[in-house]
């Protein structure tokens, strides 16, 4: 199994009610349903992904986070709200984080680190927008419009009173390397954050 899924599933308990924002083709929810016995929904806007989810028995709802938010979900109605590799693609990640921790008791977020050494190096040397395995797009067609670094994200969490319960840093292949653990903001490509409100346990 992909190491990032392995890490995420350790934080999910059997019977948890889960919301997966930008659930893609439903791989993660499908896995969690089968292995962890969770219930819940995925939100997605890509038509092919939605069809795939429906075909594999993942409950998926077509919903655009940018325009519709999460207003249709009651406060605290989920144990965990997940968002893997979608934070950088929404218009207001700060508001989405607030909404995640309103609708759910806990959040799990993964996103690519714009401070990774290869991206820094690429920009310095070539003077062009960097590309990597985690960010395989051109500047003009990328869905990733709100790139940040691990430090930026953690600063936002502090500002918002969001507590980081755990952080795991992996490389572009979602491998957990000791170097990335040592200098995460420089060597980590993707981080998996487990977050909650300051006052939550």
């Amino acid at each position, binding site marked *: 199994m992909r190491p990032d899924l392995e890490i995420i599933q350790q934080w999910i308990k059997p019977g948890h009610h889960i919301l997966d924002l930008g659930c893609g083709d439903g791989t993660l929810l499908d896995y969690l349903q089968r292995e962890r016995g969770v219930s819940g929904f995925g939100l997605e806007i890509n038509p092919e992904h939605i069809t795939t989810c429906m075909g594999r*028995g993942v409950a998926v709802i077509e919903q655009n986070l940018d325009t519709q938010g999460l207003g*249709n979900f009651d406060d605290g109605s989920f144990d965990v709200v997940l968002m893997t590799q979608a934070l950088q693609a929404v218009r207001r990640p700060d508001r989405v984080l607030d909404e995640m921790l309103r609708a759910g008791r806990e959040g799990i977020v993964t996103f690519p680190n714009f401070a990774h050494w290869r991206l820094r190096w690429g920009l310095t040397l070539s003077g062009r927008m960097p590309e990597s395995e985690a960010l395989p797009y051109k500047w003009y067609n990328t869905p990733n419009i709100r790139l940040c670094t691990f430090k930026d994200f953690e600063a936002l969490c502090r500002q918002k009173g969001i507590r980081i319960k755990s952080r795991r840093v992996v490389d572009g292949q979602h491998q957990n390397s000791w170097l990335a653990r040592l200098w995460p903001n420089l060597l980590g490509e993707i981080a998996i954050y487990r977050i909650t409100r300051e006052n939550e346990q």
Partner: protein
Amino acid sequence: MPDSLPADSVGIVSPQTYHFENPIDLACGQTLESYDLVVETYGELNADASNAVLICHALSGHHHAAGFHSVDERKPGWWDSCIGPGKPIDTNRFFVVSLNNLGGCHGSTGPGSINPATGKPYGPDFPVITVSDWVKSQALLADRLGIDCWAAVVGGSLGGMQALQWSLDYPERLRHAVAIASTPRLTAQNIAFNEVARQAITSDQEFHEGRYYDFDTLPRRGLMLARMVGHITYLSDASMGEKFGRELRDQAYKFGYGAEFQVESYLRYQGERFSESFDANTYLLMTRALDYFDPAYEFDGDLSRALAPASCNFLVLSFSTDWRFTPARSEEMVNAMIAARKKVSYAEIDAPWGHDAFLIPTPRYTDIFQAYMARVAREVGA
């Protein structure tokens, strides 16, 4: 009718009449002592009767959902685009049951049937039927067919309401409910359109307070107007524009009130044809069933509470240009299901055809429907 039947057609089919002798108590307080239901089936019921799918029809629909009655039939059943070998409701895997609802005018007992108490047609004495009544009669039909649990109950528009009602009235008797282009209740505007349709019918001089059978006449004009109003609401501005624009029948304005624009003559033709084949009392009854449908009514309007008994999986689909039952109405239903922690999937299909889009195959609609139903088939081992 085509010279040869299309390969993905269920082929030549024939309806069957099921007679029920046990009285059925209706929501309005009346009882039907005995009644008939006309039914078509496609595909084969498997050994453990797990692969049955119920198709619920919309306002003016009936039992003939797929295939042809004869090689001379011009058009196939009303949902032929979605039912057949290899189609979303795949008859190679599913046993499909489609019926004409109680109160209908295509063979099932309705206002035009003979009332055994009087020996004359029921006419306006036929009891008002609700969506719940239909579901009850469909459950009795399922008993008769040896089906304990439907793999899925599927319907568009008024048919979607029946699917939703099934999930509440008989939660243990269906695995999936599919509601397409539907709504959890009518809005004031929806009811207003129905009222215009009913007024058109009841104010026709030939209506005779619903006893037109006795006068050997029909309120054709009223029914035609009712259908014209309905028809407009089933299409979209864009699809009508594309089909007719402001095209004239003859090149110039005639400065009169005949059917000068193509769209006028189209509506008149459709209305007239409909008035020849549909019963006016049934139209009143079906629009009333639409108006009354509101599962949240007994729960202070809280649909999520009304949904508490449901245990099936739901698929809800809406269409972007449907202004009869807008995507917002479907989302209302979906949000109540989310709040009630039901298993629901939802997509809004971008299609230009208005409410009628649920009858017209568009790639995304077909793909989603196909994927979902394939999963249902796998689940029941079909």
